[in-house]
């Protein structure tokens, strides 16, 4: 046997690169095409009537398929359910720091959507605020939730806590 003791190999670089081609799926595609036309599409569960936003192929609570006929258009106004003030930058969000990430319960929906709040002083942000979507100019609309730039406060009284407490 050789006396020579070689250095143990501690690191092995094995790069893995695989390409995938995704399909958003039927229901997500419907949602995204809706956005392209400035529509916010939710879908109604045939069992308990809850409205899921965005649309899913299936009610995740009951495991029943949600048919295309169950699609409903929701308004672009809703209630701020909860929020967080962000003070660290993020590559895909072109907003100036600090900004506010929010969960909005659109009127008529039973699930919240995530977005950001604009045109509002940080000290004024609070749960229950009524909000409205601020859209990009129509000619820039694409199949993206980014068609909504941010939500802005509405000049309305706050929604009562009971109306959104299940969604916090």
């Amino acid at each position, binding site marked *: 046997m050789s006396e020579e003791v070689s250095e143990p190999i501690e690191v*092995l670089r*094995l790069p*893995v690169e*695989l*390409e*995938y*081609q*995704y*399909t*958003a*799926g*039927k*229901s*997500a*595609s419907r949602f995204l095409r809706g956005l392209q036309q400035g529509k916010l599409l939710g879908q109604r569960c045939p069992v308990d009537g809850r409205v899921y936003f965005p649309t*899913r*192929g*299936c*009610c*995740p*609570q*009951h*495991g*029943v*398929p949600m048919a295309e006929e169950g699609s409903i258009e929701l308004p672009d106004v809703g209630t701020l359910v909860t929020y967080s003030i962000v003070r660290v930058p993020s590559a895909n969000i072109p907003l100036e720091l600090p900004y506010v990430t929010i969960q909005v319960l659109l009127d008529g929906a039973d699930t919240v959507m995530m977005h950001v709040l604009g045109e509002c002083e940080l000290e004024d942000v609070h749960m229950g605020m009524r909000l409205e979507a601020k859209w990009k100019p129509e000619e820039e609309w694409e199949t993206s939730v980014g068609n909504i730039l941010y939500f802005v406060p509405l000049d309305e009284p706050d929604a009562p806590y009971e109306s959104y407490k299940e969604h916090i």
Partner: protein
Amino acid sequence: MRDVAVVAFSQSPSVRRETDCNEVEILIPVIHELRTNAGITNEDVDFVCSGSSDYLAGQSFAFVSGLDAVGAWPPVCESHVEMDGAWALYEAWVKIQMGYAELALVYGFGKPSMGDLPLTMALQLDPYSVMPLWPDAVSIAALQARLLLDDGVVSERDMAEVAVRDRANAKQNPYAQVKGDFSVDQILADPYLVSPLRKHDCSPISDGASAILLAAGDRAKDLCKRPAWIRGIEHICEPQDLGVRDLKRSRSTEIAAEKAGVRAGKIDVAELSAPFTHQEILVERALGLGSETSINPSGGALAGNPIMAVSADRAVAHATSGPCLQQNLICVLEG
């Protein structure tokens, strides 16, 4: 041992590329059909177990979104195997044997068309010495086929005969993807895809899903007129290193068959899920199947597929995983 039976089955068609639906949307109607046909609701199910691969989806924890198709509120008792659905069925069977469940929902789903399946399969090989060479799944199988041919264990004609049989049987199976009448000579005249394998020696790449309902004892009799009772089920694994295995036979299938009691009686139907023709021959030999057995009446596209559909008293189902039949599962069913 408790008596456990397959009481319902459903599946999606096997297709080369599902363009509209995502992985979960392929699964949704399958689970829905299973529950509707069996006349059960989510509350009746004690245990849910799935088999799928995050490598096929290219996303970590992709299987979690599959639970959308099941419905997971109120919370359900659930598990997942990064394996074929047959191994999920095994886990559910164990769960029922342990007395933790009476009725179990088992499903498997995959959408390999999203990626490059033969290359993705390279990731299951030894990560230090083999995987970095990126040998694709067809090439690995071709090496095994070459070994079998050179040693006279099988001939190219034997392999073509398997393809002819399976493609012809698949004509009866509305869910099968590749079917039709071919002749052995016609197939042997085809060019090699990866020598010595021709296109017909390889299973197609399929997007699809299937689901099974397992029930214990009286529960099974309540739900189904003629339950398919699991009389034996066993899975055996061989080493990962291809060099230390005997690739000219399937030892793990032989042992699993012995333990599952395949030879304890006449087998009417056998569904073998081997992805290459030469591997199907090895599995057939390892099981000791003879002319009294109808092999792959479904065309072999999905293991277990025709068990609920054909009139069999005693059937054997096979599933495999890993390169060159590394792991094999054998299930003996009686109706």
